[in-house]
């Protein structure tokens, strides 16, 4: 199975779970013929991407989604809308560039109000406007 699809399946389990899961629990919920170490690798990759939180629980690690599905979807939409103000880096091309202000407000509210731990927003890139002084990549 493709790694991407496996990551998606693991995330689906974490989003569906009531609380943080151990590697074993994720492995059992996946209901597929997978090696334990494969699940561990996938969780490690997801943690590296910042979408999964890793917390120590006694001897074992437990894993949870860093933000809810709704939060992540809302932050993606805002990114696609170019919600970072004047910054149009041409990273994405939207069918209709700007959704109305109400929709954008609804997305921001979804990002704010969801009851899960703080979402990790996509890296925002402020545009150098008049002075044009860049602050460097990823600052």
């Amino acid at each position, binding site marked *: 199975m493709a790694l991407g699809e496996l990551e998606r399946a693991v995330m689906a389990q974490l989003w569906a779970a009531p609380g943080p899961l151990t590697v074993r629990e994720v492995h059992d919920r996946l209901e597929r013929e997978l090696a334990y170490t494969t699940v561990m690798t996938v969780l490690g990759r997801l943690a590296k991407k910042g979408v999964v939180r890793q917390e120590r629980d006694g001897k074992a690690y437990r894993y949870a989604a860093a933000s809810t599905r709704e939060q992540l979807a809302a932050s993606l939409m805002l990114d696609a809308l170019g919600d970072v103000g004047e910054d149009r880096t041409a*990273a994405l*091309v939207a069918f209709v560039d700007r959704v109305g202000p109400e929709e954008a407000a609804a997305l921001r509210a979804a990002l704010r109000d969801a009851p899960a731990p703080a979402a990790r927003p*996509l890296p925002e890139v402020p545009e150098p406007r008049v002075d044009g002084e860049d602050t460097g*990549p990823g600052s």
Partner: protein
Amino acid sequence: MASVWLAVLALLLAGPVPSVLARARWPQRVPRAAIVLWQAIALAAVLAAVGSALAAPEELLRALGPEDRRGTPMVVAVVVAATVAGLIVLRLLGVLALLAVRTRRRRARHRDMVDLLDRAERSAALGGFGARTVLRVLDGAVPFAYCVPGRAPRVVVTDGALDTLDDDELRAVLAHEQAHLDARHDLVREGFVALHQAFPVLVRSRQARDAVGLLLEMLADDAGRARCSDAAMAGALEAFVAAGDAEVAARLERVRAHRCGGPALATGTYLVAAAVVVVPTVAVVIPWLSQALPAAGFLR
């Protein structure tokens, strides 16, 4: 005089010309040719500015008497000219490089997240639409569709879009996004975004960026119209339209009016684009070189 002429040309191409072109309506009839014209104007403006700076000291040299040629004014002129020309080129290249890095990083992260969030059962159900690019479906009631360009492109639609659009309209939207991806419209846009970031004031680079952005959308709309029908494309735009968005209103009006320019207008626009780059070179730079090179001791 070459330096002066090139400076005048650079100022014209940086200010009044983009202003007039951004307000004109005819470019919307031939979006592809109009985009080429915008690119030609931008290229010619940068070349003229750099050429003007580089030609200045040599002209000063010929204007001065022989005894002044090795003096301080000449050194100052050469240093100033090289600095101005260098700043223009380095600034543009620097901004372009930084933008390219940031764009690709943001895009890669976005693609990762879209892959994680995909509602696989819904995107699999869209297989019948024959999309050539990996499709992703996001949760969300806001009707929205976009593409993530690059080497591993994605077309993303929301649940809301799938609920709002009928099959023909969805096909038109997918054809629109595919046109963006196939023709790498993102690279065209990136060039104008970089130009604006590099020279945000004095130059009408914002108009250029926004006008080209709109023309690219219209070009992709034309792909949707060709693949499906004007009605399907208009229906899709209507479904997505937010009240009071001037750009979408312009696109919608254009599709509804079946507006599209003939080959004559397109050919004329391409010819003007070529002339913008070629004529200054032939009329100003070549005569200048034929004087300057012998004066400097070359081509004797």
